[in-house]
């Protein structure tokens, strides 16, 4: 092997830096391995992992025979420790399924038994009174409920960011803007040669396919199994923090023949999500939102929570579920391509299951022959980023004494300081969307109307990037045309 190839040689390459790839990479970072994490977008978590319901599911939605159900429950249990190590926003607020009539009561009894069988700790069938006591925002028409106290909510992109950061601190190498487009394997050695569109190359002995919507195409590049991923779109509306409709628990309706019904989901940051829809589409890049369904979405949500109002909408967005035939996760050692692990079809509850998927894939790699030796200096914890928003004035005064940039409030809606923006940039987030997901700047009710110009100025100052390379989310998403 030529010398210059030495430094691009990895034991394992994980393709796709969504929550699944990030969880796997972080898990592998505990071992004495050279690991690469490659992502086609300008930042991590720019795929399905950024646009979903953010629910840590409670293990009662699917039958226990599915792999996804097993991993969902295992994953769920891992979040408390992960939060202590990684400090992402997470709250075990519980999930409540609301039955609005007798028929729906029967359905939740069924779910209750399934939850018990699956091992959803503390799951409880509730009377009307108990249901309303748990969630006073529910309509008085509610007749009963199912309560899963182990359910919760997280900010998915902050979770992924912190996983990746932890992985990087422990030696994983991240390649952004690296779209795996060609793969070569020379029978003589054990390495895959993996190329991106600019012909950048890395070599890897083992590979994990965690490419989300594109896992089918990546599988093909490796000459591995043939399967097809179909995108299923879910649209959401985001409500302002000032809404009267914010519940304290995740609220699910009971699905019926006519419709799946809309969820009302509190976010850790105090806003509310209403959605998602479910629509099979063809185009894997089609994240467009529509308006036709606005009324029906809100009607459905209001059936459960009467205070839900379109007046509180600050934005809408959509996410694409990577659906594989059979509806289960497909996580296996490839039978066709040696040393390739497939982690495909990770639709809901993929976010919940991700930490367990990390564990599961690590075991598969071992089975496929990868030697695992623990690193003596593995650091599980990442340093916390102080946030002005979470602090009282007295503590902020302290922060400002140590770093004056904490006193400069850049985003007024979400109260984000210049110091937090700089920290985001230093941790590798250099696009407007990346900084937004890391800091929340521009996520509030003005949606960046005031802070965008200031953030651009800070990016240019901190990175030395010229104005024409400032982008919303990399590639051709440039912000400016030219200077005056």
């Amino acid at each position: 092997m030529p010398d210059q190839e030495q430094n691009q040689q990895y034991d394992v390459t994980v393709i796709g830096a969504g929550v699944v790839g990030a969880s796997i990479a972080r898990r592998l970072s505990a071992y004495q391995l050279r690991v690469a994490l490659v992502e086609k977008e300008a930042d991590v978590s720019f795929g399905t992992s950024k646009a979903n319901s953010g629910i840590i599911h409670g293990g009662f939605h699917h039958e226990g025979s599915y792999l996804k159900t097993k991993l969902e429950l295992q994953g769920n249990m891992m979040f408390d420790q992960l939060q202590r190590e990684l400090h992402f926003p997470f709250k075990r607020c519980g999930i409540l399924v609301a039955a609005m009539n007798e028929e729906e009561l029967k359905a939740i009894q069924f779910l209750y038994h399934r939850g018990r069988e699956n091992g959803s700790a503390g799951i409880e069938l509730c009377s009307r009174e108990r249901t309303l006591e748990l969630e006073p925002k529910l309509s008085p028409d509610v007749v009963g409920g199912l309560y899963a106290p182990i359910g919760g909510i997280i900010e998915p992109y902050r979770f992924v960011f912190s996983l990746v950061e932890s992985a990087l601190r422990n030696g994983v190498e991240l390649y952004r803007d690296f779209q795996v487009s060609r793969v070569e394997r020379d029978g003589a050695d054990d390495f895959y040669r993996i190329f991106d569109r600019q012909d950048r190359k890395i070599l890897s002995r083992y590979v994990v396919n965690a490419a989300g919507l594109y896992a089918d195409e990546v599988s093909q590049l490796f000459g591995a199994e043939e399967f097809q991923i179909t995108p299923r779109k879910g649209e959401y509306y985001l409500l302002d923090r000032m809404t009267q409709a914010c519940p304290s628990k995740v609220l699910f309706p009971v699905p019926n023949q006519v419709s799946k019904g809309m969820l009302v989901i509190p976010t850790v940051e105090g806003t509310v999500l209403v959605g998602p829809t479910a629509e099979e589409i063809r185009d894997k890049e089609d994240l467009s939102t529509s308006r036709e369904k606005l009324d029906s979405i809100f009607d459905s949500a209001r059936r459960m929570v009467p205070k839900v109002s379109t007046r509180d909408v600050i934005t809408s967005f959509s996410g694409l579920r990577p659906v594989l035939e059979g509806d289960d996760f497909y996580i296996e050692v490839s039978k066709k391509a040696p040393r390739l692990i497939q982690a495909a079809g990770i639709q809901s509850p993929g976010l919940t299951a991700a930490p367990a998927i990390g564990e599961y894939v690590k075991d598969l790699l071992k089975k496929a022959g990868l030697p695992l030796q623990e690193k003596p200096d593995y650091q599980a914890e990442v340093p916390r980023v102080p946030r002005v928003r979470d602090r009282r004035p007295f503590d902020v005064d302290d922060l400002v004494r140590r770093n004056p940039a904490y006193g400069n409030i850049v985003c007024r809606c979400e109260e984000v300081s210049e110091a937090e923006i700089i920290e985001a940039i230093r941790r590798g987030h250099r696009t407007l969307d990346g900084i937004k997901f890391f800091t929340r700047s521009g996520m509030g009710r003005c949606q960046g109307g005031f802070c965008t110009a200031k953030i651009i100025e800070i990016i240019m100052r901190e990175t030395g990037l010229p104005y024409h390379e400032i982008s919303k989310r990399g590639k051709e998403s440039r912000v400016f045309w030219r200077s005056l």
Partner: protein
Amino acid sequence: MRSEITDALVVGGGAAGMAAAVELDQQGFSVALIEREDELGGVLLQCIHNGFGLQEFNEELTGPEYAERWIETVKKSKIQVFTSSTLTEINLLERNLKECFIYSAVHGVLRFTTRTVVLAMGCRERNRGNVLIPGTRPAGVYTAGLAQRMVNIDGYIPGKEVVIVGSGDIGLIMARRMQWVGAKVHGVVEIQPYPSGLTRNISQCLHDFDIPLYLSHVVSRIHGIDRVEAVDITPLKNGVPDQSRTFRQKCDTLLLSVGLIPENELSKQVGIELNPLTGGPMVDSMLMSNIEGVFAAGNVLHVHDLVDFVSAEARLAGQKAGAYLRGWRPKLEVQVKPGANVKYVNPTKVDPTGQSEIFLRPLIVSNHVSLTLSLDGTVIKRQKKAHVQPSEMIRIKVNSKIFDQHTLKGDTKIVVGLEEMD
């Protein structure tokens, strides 16, 4: 943490904040003026076009020139100015005192205790989420005010093929500005059957550049993955989009000028009652909110189209805040209500013993109207108006004399209406 005490604290150093602070200073009170940006002036600083100051200074100035005049006055006063400082929180203490926290890189956290607060935080722009334009989410969608700032302050042009949604003044002024810097504006799309900006801006910013104005049209979809590639424009038929006549306009930039809303986060945080018609605080004849000693003026109170009115309103707020500090209160107040064809009136109470000014926002476009003031059902004042439209606020002066022949009670109501004549 540094602690300070003052008679009055003014939040926001735009046209409104400066005028209120100057007025209080001239009355001999100690004043702190807090401004988040590095400079005083507010939105004026990015409005480099002409059209400011005809009433205040009797000449046509640009926004920065208008601001400069006020900044000079502030500099000569004893006002304590804190720029690059954001007020984040107001708490109510005993004896009507207020505690304000201000964050700044230079001073750390400042804690001010004050007897009065004048809110002058201005307004913000409504955005894509507020109007729910369907489609993709590419780069190239900006509010017009943000684009204005990018071009006029930072020196960067956001795009070269432009469509503008909404015919508000900022949108119109940006249409002209974008043409001037070499971009092509393909049209201004307005949902209403009439433009929402000033007539002179329609002619100077659109007609002079042959920019089409699509009235009763909406942008029904945004296309493009990384950057905007095109938008769908759909005409309305009887108020609903007629999809069969949708056409596609190629562009790389979409500017939104879809309305302004008072910046009322702080107002809500202190528990101020808001007027649903204006989106700003509900105020009495002193421009004081339901919270004793908290006043409001300028765009934070209701969105203005003329800066001269902002300055006048804020001067009044300063005067009244001073009067309040000296212990003065009106003996009697009568309520003012919007009548026919009027969206809102501000303030919603006047003191019948003094001179008052009422601002009102029309709901109609008309060349033949008469403005009427009625007191408990009887018309006491009538005035012809040559032209009214929703984008042009009307100011009326109310003299105490008109109340003379009436016996006023606590529940007396003035109704301000616009009667259409044939």
